[in-house]
């Protein structure tokens, strides 16, 4: 929420290319409407029921520039049965399944989801944090806030400390690697639990990382949730994500001198072929995949 070139101007281009998938585009972003009337917009933020499709789910000033997240969560598929180049004439090889992109939720979210979204927006506004929420997704009865990487510590602190949120317990911190060919493949996931309100939310951070040699970075939340200590060490160990500000980010499950990060999708599972009754069974990661 710092720089702005004008209403509807830079949406979709203010961030780097997101794999060509930009289904929600510019005018849907509340970020592009604020401009000089930002303060007035804050006052209205989250209270425009009709605006569901035309602003980022009523997140007011918390919506980041560039609209919704639209990071693909998975890879695109082609054909069936995992067969390549076999001269298959059945027609199945022509099947195309685009990559799954989590859809942004629309107001009203339903149940307590509206409350928690409004309270989070209000609490972040109060603490002077701007542009933290990239998208809200509601799927299978669970709410996910997509958080900008550099804001995750402030968001966690707000989630824990604000009396209307009270997320006392951080259940888990982990990561998901969506695959080598997926743009922005690495996501860090936080599962928070409010024991006071008996609500669970998921915070998801999509890391701006293209799979290069340089490890992705994001702030550590250990100072807010001490329990995240081992979770973040495990995530570093398994995914090679660096949590800046962690008191001692060392490997935890693998030996200290281990090379590589085993849970990355480009790290092989390992295994040896096994002969059984004359036939050779390849190791699991070299067997035919049907999906």
């Amino acid at each position: 929420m710092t720089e702005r070139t004008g209403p509807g101007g830079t949406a979709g281009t203010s961030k780097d290319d997101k794999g060509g998938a930009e289904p929600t585009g510019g005018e849907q972003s509340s970020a592009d409407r604020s401009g000089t009337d930002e303060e007035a917009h804050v006052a209205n933020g989250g209270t425009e029921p009709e605006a569901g499709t035309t602003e980022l789910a009523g997140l007011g000033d918390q919506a980041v520039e560039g609209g919704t997240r639209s990071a693909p969560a998975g890879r695109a598929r082609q054909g069936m049965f995992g067969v390549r180049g076999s001269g298959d004439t059945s027609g199945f090889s022509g099947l195309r399944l685009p990559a799954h992109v989590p859809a942004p939720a629309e107001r009203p979210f339903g149940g307590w989801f509206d409350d928690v979204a409004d309270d989070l927006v209000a609490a972040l506004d109060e603490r002077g944090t701007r542009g933290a929420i990239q998208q809200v997704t509601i799927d299978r009865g669970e709410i996910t806030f997509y958080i900008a990487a550099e804001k995750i510590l402030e968001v966690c602190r707000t989630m824990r400390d604000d009396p209307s949120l009270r997320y006392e317990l951080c259940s888990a911190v982990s990561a998901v690697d969506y695959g080598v060919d997926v743009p922005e493949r690495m996501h860090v996931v936080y599962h928070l639990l409010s024991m006071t309100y008996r609500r669970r939310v998921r915070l998801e951070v999509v890391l701006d990382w293209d799979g290069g040699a340089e490890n992705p970075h994001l702030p550590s939340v250990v100072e807010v949730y001490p329990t995240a200590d081992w979770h973040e060490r495990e995530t570093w160990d398994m995914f090679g994500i660096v949590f800046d500000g962690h008191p001692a980010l060392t490997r935890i499950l693998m030996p200290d001198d281990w090379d590589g990060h085993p849970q990355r999708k480009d790290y092989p599972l390992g295994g040896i072929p096994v002969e059984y009754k004359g036939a050779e069974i390849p190791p699991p990661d070299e067997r035919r995949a049907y999906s």
Partner: protein
Amino acid sequence: MTTPETDAYAPERETTEGTIYTVTGGDWDSIVDSEHDDRIVINMGPQHPSTHGVLRLVLELEGETVTQARSVIGYLHTGIEKNCEYRTWTQGVTFVTRADYLAPLFNEAAYVMGVEKLLGIEAPQRAQTIRVMLMEINRIGSHLVCLATGGMELGALTGMTAGFREREEVLHLLEYLTGLRMNHAFFRPGGLAQDLPDDWREKIDEFIKVFHERLGDYDKLLTGQPIWKQRLEGVGYLPIDGCLALGATGPILRSAGLAWDQRKVEPYWGYDTYDFEVPTETGADCYSRYLVRVAEIHESLKIIEQAADRLEPGPVMVEDRKVAWPAQLSIGSDGMGNTLEHVRKIMGQSMESLIHHFKLVTEGFHVPAGQVYSCVESPRGELGVHLVSDGGTRPVRVHLREPSFVNLQTMPAMSEGGMVADVIAAVASIDPVMGGVDR
């Protein structure tokens, strides 16, 4: 030849931090002298009998007092989460069940709950009730191992023999009901692998009777015993704010006074319809955790009785043939497999059913893209599973939020400032299972 100076296996070494000595016993006096202070760093484990498997504790001691304690884990890392990514959703059950090997059914439960949530299906009523019943039997077994090994570590060897004797009853019963003593792979997405054997009721009644007779012995043997109380009371103290900050759940949290139990606060599979209590204590020490666990065994027995009473005949797997395996399993002379009649049926019925069977077993079913977090109350606390699907027949990510892993972080907070002997009591009261910690 066996003096410290010439030890062939671990001679003393000069390092930048100082000299590293190897003390093999009986030679302590040759090390401690006027030029050394009392500060000692020792490694306990990874194969010490009191560390619950392959856990290593690094303790900094001043005399008998622990000034710093750290746990080193990873010795039992088996890559369960990574392996799941290369198998079908159904095969994943056989992997996650091996994480926390003392409570395998809970791993399966959290996992299949997640898969069912992703699929948008619900297991039939009978399957849910059987799951609840089996999980509570498993909880008793897990708590008994905690009491048994905890007792052994503190020198109450009769507690160990008694605990493992009772646990054997649990394993026998689970073997009879599911086919395997441990690592059952009995819960499947959509229901159960097979129905209970015909005379399950008699076995359950017998089990409950035996336990009602024997559970009182634990109170006689341990609860009021002065030595047991002296070893545990006021030891391993962790109040409620410490529990929340460090993420501790389960008996540790309940021993600090918070009645937080997933079965009550986020009921699943009909737990809200069972009549049971969530035992709590306020001591926040090892003794309170012991009391909570014993009380939970009694509550689990109540749930088992109620579940057995309400079990109605019916299917144990969803009707959807795109999810349910066509298998009709039976125990044969060479292990578990399809019944001959069923093999004859699918082989003889039609080509299509054979193809369908083959595809469902080798390829698996497709799970709609998305992610879920599902959790159950395992004997050690909140056991959560984060599942991510991209629409394929294999998971993109399976992450286990293991309560053992999270709870073990409380070990320094419980032990620092106490005596070395109390570290053992604290670790025993955390009840970490290294299969779950390291996965």
